[in-house]
């Protein structure tokens, strides 16, 4: 039957307004439209941040160039420092043997006499230097042979400990032993291992970097 009261346009319009599918489509369009607002806001803030960061990058690059220019003026000092740093492990690993001998002299008991003192380096590490390598020992062995007057054998322990205090930090007593001797003398053997750590203040050695007091 023909619909005589409603025009086809009206029917179509009514179907767009009332049917569920078209309402769902309308909802989708509305939601999509609404989502555009935060999207635009986020896009704007991102663009603004990006611009600010780009400006900052330019400033930082300019500052870096300026710093590089300033660094050129200090090139000589930088090279010298680099050379000192290359030498540093060589100097740090050197046990001042004269100071060790002086420490022995200062701590040896009055009732003791020394027969042999030996300082020997071992466990070398080859460090690179201009043109090759230079060996730096990682361990020193200090051995002392001597004798104590009869009746003063107990002074060995005090001597051992006193000398250990004077040696660089990390020095270890490997042997501290009384040996069989004559009636009047008691021989002893003392062996220390010393790891050169660069700090020899216990030996009374002045730091190389310190200004000369003279």
């Amino acid at each position, binding site marked *: 039957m023909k619909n005589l009261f409603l025009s086809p346009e009206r029917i179509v319009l009514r179907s767009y307004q009332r049917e569920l599918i078209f309402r*769902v489509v309308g909802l989708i369009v509305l939601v999509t439209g609404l989502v555009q607002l935060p999207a635009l806001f986020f896009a704007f803030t991102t663009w603004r941040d990006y611009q600010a960061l780009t400006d900052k990058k330019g400033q930082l690059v300019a500052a870096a160039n300026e710093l590089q220019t300033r660094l050129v003026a200090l090139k000589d000092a930088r090279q010298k420092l680099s*050379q000192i740093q290359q030498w540093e492990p060589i100097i740090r690993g050197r046990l001042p043997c004269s100071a060790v001998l002086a420490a022995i002299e200062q701590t040896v008991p009055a009732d003791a006499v020394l027969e042999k003192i030996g300082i020997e380096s071992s466990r070398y590490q080859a460090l690179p230097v201009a043109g090759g390598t230079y060996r730096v020992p990682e361990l020193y062995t200090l051995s002392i042979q001597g004798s104590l007057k009869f009746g003063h054998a107990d002074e060995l322990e005090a001597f051992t400990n006193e000398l250990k205090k004077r040696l660089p930090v990390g020095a270890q007593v490997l042997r501290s032993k009384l040996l069989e001797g004559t009636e009047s003398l008691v021989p002893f053997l003392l062996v220390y291992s010393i790891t050169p750590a660069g700090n020899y203040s216990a030996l009374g050695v002045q730091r190389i970097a310190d200004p000369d007091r003279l």
Partner: protein
Amino acid sequence: MKFKTLFLFAAIVVSAGLLGLELKLLADGWTAAQLLDQENKQQETANNHLEGEIEGLRVSKPRIEALYTRLSDTMIASRGTSSLHINSTPTAPLNDGSSFEAAGIAGFTQAGLIVQPVRVPNGEMSIIYEAGTGGLEFHRLVPLLAEQENADLFLYFDKVLLSRPPNIQPFSTEPTYLETRLTIRMLTGK
């Protein structure tokens, strides 16, 4: 009915496509901004580090120069070459008894030690000597070693062996000339 389904499907596809595209663009923009921010932070850290280094160098310049001069001077004094140009060629070969060698070991020879050069391991930038004497007392030997150690900060005593001669009795008040054996090693320039 077919038209309605197609219409709904098309609306969903267009909407999802549009939102997806927007999300991707926003994510790309945000990632780019984050990367730039990270780069800036790294550059800022590098700049701060460089500025600290420059300031440190500027403040420490006199000390660096003084220490460098002191270290170089020890080499100049002992080996006749300036470590201001540490890579420079030595003035003479090592094994011909030249002044190059003599300068490094002069303090020992002048003190009466007999000095003998020793073969240097391949690749090592050093000169090595064995030295010995039986004519120095302890109180003269220690200052000599200290003087040489102070004169050349790269001088190593690899071995120091001091022993009392067997003919000297313990607790003797007579002068005791120690039997001294040293292994001396010094850094050389290229």
